[in-house]
């Protein structure tokens, strides 16, 4: 009897332990899922206090060698902000009355700024804290069109300046034009006023940046720009928008491509309605289209995006690019950050060179800024100042202006640190070791790729989307890297790499940003993995086959009555993933006006479900004249998803 009891107790204890272990394991998982940290657990957005009433529609930021932050505004003011990282920053008005200053750079004791019409050198000669010399280095022609914004300057290693010039917007604004030289161009300007036209093909080059002595910029979605991206600016390059080609015949032009040559190969899509009035061309679904990399075969001077920033996900009007200095932002030092005006967010970019050309990965980094971010500048304490304005356009952050700073709290987030292209796939580097079991499971990764059209229509839907099956994964010994064998890699395509299930070893947290977008301009040569090195474990297949074994098959759930299924009103919880996936939430909120109208306001218009689906695919911005930014067509939203979204929106009407 004693033995049996002992055995029972032992067995019981053993079972208990098993149960407990199982339970604890589950609890830990559940706990971790609810608790995975978010962006603001690592990077805090703080305000830079300014005297009440100071209008800070920031257009330019520049940190001086002594740590003072120069802030230029669209109202023509220039403030020197002393101690910008402290509790009591001091604002001193350095200059005023300039014409919309959209950038500043400090050199040899002078502040160089770009106004609408000129590059100006400001000097405070009598050291009273105010500029007294406003020297015109070079004044370029202007037609007087409101959209001829001018950006820069960025200082080249030889001390010369670069500026970029926006196109003008005529009444048919969907085809901006270059009305006078050198709109849509980048110019190199020397201190003595000598001008060298540098490159053409720019559309809205607000994000002019100098990274390690190389000139870069980000263009914004519009005609010939399917989505925003970052591109290096080489001398003599054609950045993609044809309107500025009208000046390639001028002396000193480093490129010879004419508009006639361009439009001989590319349809300008100039269209009229039945009354002969110019009309905005629409995207044609199911057409034969050209991609930019195909167009480059015809025009070698065309510069392809180095890293695409998918529209509506990683921004809608990307602007300044900065490099994270050594010692700042932990594991991301050396990488790039780029800000966005419309979505009030910052993205991170990992850049690499393959076969001599730039490419790389982009992730969302931080959202939640109060207005649209236009400028970035590093402050002396390693925090990042953000200059913001949204007047005339709207943004996710509802304030019309802002000067904030992003501060790291020195805790390392669990993120993809880098993604490198491999001869047979991608290698993902993490900031912290991963849980190896999850990382060795192919089902933890999902990759598909797509591209944009290159056409004279405003923006482009993602096209040619295909899945990229993963054949195997090799996790490094230290758990910091996972190298994937990926099939169906397509050169030039944007590869969406989602690691929804990956967890870190230490806390079993999810990645803060589980989705990356890798622009694969080149596939490197080199050693491929052999199948013996990789794990082919795939828990999704295991579940499916287990289900098959049990005879459950893959029967679909019992169908409800057809009517009920089709017209059942989804809850927000059901529809939210669709809104996220289709980038609706970049511009819309249920109750609050953002870049686009609140969904409750859309519901008030009493559109039918069919109308709502049509409007998702082919929006009518004229229905919302109070909103500055037109909604781009979204024909890529699957009809069933659009229907669910439409049903939900309709349900919001009271």
């Amino acid at each position: 009897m004693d033995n049996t009891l002992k055995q029972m107790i032992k067995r019981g204890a053993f079972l208990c332990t098993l149960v407990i272990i199982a339970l604890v394991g589950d609890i830990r998982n559940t706990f971790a899922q609810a608790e995975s940290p978010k962006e603001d657990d690592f990077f805090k957005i703080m305000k830079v206090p300014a005297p009440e009433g100071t209008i800070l529609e920031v257009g330019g930021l520049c940190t001086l060698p002594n740590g003072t932050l120069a802030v230029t505004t669209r109202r023509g003011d220039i403030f020197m902000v002393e101690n910008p990282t402290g509790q009591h920053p001091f604002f001193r008005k350095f200059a005023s009355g300039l014409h919309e200053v959209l950038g500043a750079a400090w050199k040899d004791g002078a502040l160089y700024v770009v106004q609408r019409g000129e590059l100006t050198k400001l000097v405070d000669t009598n050291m009273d804290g105010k500029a007294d010399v406003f020297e015109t280095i070079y004044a370029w022609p202007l037609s007087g069109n409101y959209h001829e914004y001018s950006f820069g300057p960025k200082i080249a290693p030889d001390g010369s300046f670069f500026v970029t010039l926006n196109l003008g917007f005529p009444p048919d604004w969907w085809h901006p034009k270059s009305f006078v030289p050198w709109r849509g161009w980048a110019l190199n300007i020397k201190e003595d006023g000598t001008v060298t036209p540098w490159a053409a093909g720019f559309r809205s080059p607000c994000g002019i940046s100098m990274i390690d002595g190389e000139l870069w910029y980000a263009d914004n979605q519009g005609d010939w720009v399917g989505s925003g991206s970052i591109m290096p600016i080489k001398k003599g390059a054609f950045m993609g928008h044809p309107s500025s080609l009208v000046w390639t015949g001028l002396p000193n032009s480093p490129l010879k491509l004419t508009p006639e040559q361009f439009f001989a190969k590319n349809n300008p899509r100039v269209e009229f309605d039945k009354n002969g009035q110019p009309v905005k061309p629409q995207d044609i679904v199911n057409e034969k289209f050209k991609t930019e990399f195909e167009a480059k075969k015809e025009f070698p001077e065309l510069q392809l995006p180095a890293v695409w920033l998918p529209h509506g996900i990683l921004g809608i009007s990307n602007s300044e690019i900065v490099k994270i200095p050594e010692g700042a932002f932990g594991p991301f030092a050396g990488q790039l950050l780029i800000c966005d005006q419309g979505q009030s967010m910052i993205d991170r970019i990992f850049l690499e060179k393959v076969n001599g050309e730039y490419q790389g990965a982009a992730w969302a980094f931080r959202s939640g800024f109060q207005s649209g971010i236009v400028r970035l500048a590093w402050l002396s304490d390693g925090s990042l100042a953000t200059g913001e304005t949204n007047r005339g356009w709207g943004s996710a952050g509802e304030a019309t202006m802002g000067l904030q700073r992003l501060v790291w709290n020195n805790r390392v987030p669990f993120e993809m640190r880098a993604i490198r292209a491999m001869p047979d796939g991608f290698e993902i580097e993490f900031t912290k070791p991963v849980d190896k079991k999850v990382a060795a499971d192919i089902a933890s990764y999902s990759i598909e790729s797509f591209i944009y059209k290159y056409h004279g229509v405003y923006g482009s839907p993602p096209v040619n989307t295909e899945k990229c099956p993963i054949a195997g994964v090799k996790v490094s010994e230290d758990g910091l890297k996972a190298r994937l064998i990926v099939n169906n890699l397509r050169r030039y395509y944007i590869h969406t790499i989602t690691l929804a299930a990956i967890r870190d070893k230490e806390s079993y947290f999810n990645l803060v940003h589980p989705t990356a977008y890798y622009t694969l301009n080149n596939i490197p040569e080199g050693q491929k993995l052999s199948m013996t090195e990789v794990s082919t474990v795939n828990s999704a297949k295991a579940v499916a086959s287990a289900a098959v074994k049990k005879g459950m098959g893959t029967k679909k759930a019992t169908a409800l009555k057809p009517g009920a299924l089709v017209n059942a009103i989804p809850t927000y919880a059901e529809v939210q993933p669709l809104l996220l996936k289709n980038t609706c939430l970049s511009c819309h909120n249920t109750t609050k006006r953002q870049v686009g109208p609140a969904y409750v306001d859309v519901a008030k218009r009493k559109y039918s479900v069919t109308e709502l689906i049509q409007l998702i695919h082919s929006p009518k911005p004229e229905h919302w004249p109070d909103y500055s930014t037109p909604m781009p067509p979204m024909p890529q939203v699957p009809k069933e998803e659009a229907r669910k979204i439409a049903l939900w929106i309709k349900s919001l009407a009271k």
Partner: protein
Amino acid sequence: MDCFNQFPKLSGRKKFWIVCFCLLGYQQVRAQNAVSFHDLSFFDNPSSNWKIAGGVQADIAQDEVLTLKEGTGILVNLPGKKGAKDLFTKTVYGDADLELDYMMARGSNSGIYLQGRYEIQLLDSWGTVNPKSGDNGGIYERWDDSKPDGQQGYDGHAPRQNASRAPGLWQHIKISFQAPRFDGKGQKIANAKVLYIWLNGVLIQDNVELSGPTRGAFDKVETATGPLRLQGDHGAVAFRNIRIISYDKPQPTLSNLKYRVYKGGDMAGDAYNKLKPESEGASPVLSSNQSKLNNDFLMRYTGNIQVKETGEYAFKLSVPGGKGKFRINGTDVVTLTENAGQGKIQLPAGDHPFELFYSKTIDWAKPALGLTVAGPGVREHLLSDANVSNNDPVDPILINAASSPIVRSFSDLPGGIRVTHSVNVGSTALLNYTYDLDKGMIVAIWRGGFLDATPMWHDRGDGSSRPAGSVQYLGKPVPAIEKLHDANAAWVLDTAGTGYKPKGYVLNADDVPAFKYLIYGVPVNDASTLMDKGQGIHREITLANAVDGLFYHLATGNVETLGNGLYAIDDKSYYIRIDDAGGAKALVRDADGKQELIIPIQKKLTYSIIF
């Protein structure tokens, strides 16, 4: 002036409809409204201080001096030592619009008495920073002798800003007056009103009620009519181009208004007849607010218009974002028009049926139906709902010269010229100017408020600002300095070939800019300072070294040589005075039907623009 759309949204994306439905200031400039100055027969027993002349000139350095030239067309008052009297018209007026030019001698004082009782002060207020009710364009005070000393004046209304010109320059004033109203028993039931006064292009009085006659009224009562009276016993003044429009007839009214709204705006002919209206009903007022649809609708109003006097009536129809039509008695008065239109029709007294269509098809615009009527003796007024506007009101963004004395912006000049590299310079002395950096020339000067920046800082803006005071434009921008091979060579219109390079500006200790540029390889310093009391701009142009054959362009327009280096430009709109030209002589020469005032320049030229 009630322009519905004062701040057109010049966004390149949106089409905009400027429906400047200007009710007031509608000028029926016809010969019969102008007062002829061949003689003084328009006036009742004129005293001898009033004369007719062909030309007149003041002296900016001496008080009360007006010199006459023989001829006709100008009415001049020279009060002399004593015996001078005011001047009264023979005609009497009730509601009336008055427009005229006047010229003050230095230090002078005169006035326009509406109905002989309500004085609008005319004064040489040149240089005054804070105008009072007794300053130029003010509604003069009333007077109560029974009050203690110093408290007898009351109810004077200062002009909104000092929009005055220098003595000896013609000033332009537009006054709209509404007489007091009386009931059948002769009791006053409504005060007289100054509906507006525009002085030199600036609205200085807007809808001001007059509680009673101002000090010095010619009698002690108020009546429905009275003569126009010009003050003659105070100072030397000249008048010309007097136009008076009398409004003494009752206004037409509308009644029996019924509306129907049909869905679908783009409708031809009578197609609407076949449709069921989306809504219909009677309305107390002609208003597009009755339509619940914002766009794609056809709105049809019917009703009657009561006309009390036979005559020709002029209608203006405003149908923003679409097309419209207005018919009376089955005849098109305003034929099918897009956005806005007008027309006239002869109507006998009585009731007439009317029909009005508003077909709206453009989504951008807000629906805002407007209809005005004007007729013989009938001031233009709004027949439709006054609370309808196709633009949301915007808080104006005004720049004060005290806080921001220099502002760069685009500047728009008459003739559709947009100066793209211009600098506006303001001062607390209220004299401001715009400098064109592409030419080295001042293109506009104004007195009063500095800038209205709403066009550039509201919403996306269009990059431009507007002067907020009384402006004098100085002609088409041309290069300031050119090399001429002889005194008759044409002045080239752009800087090509001159090596012109703008070099920006430098601020002195008082934040006053000196502009710098290169011309023919020579650095030029272009410094302007304000004359005392903001009376003008003193300009100093200095070249680092002399270049042969250079001339400076002072003005283009009509040029009168007044002597002592003083010139009056554009029919005495402003003065140019040569202060020091290093001995060079200015030339007046003909150029393309106009005249040019130019002067050789070696190393330095100083001159003044007096205004």
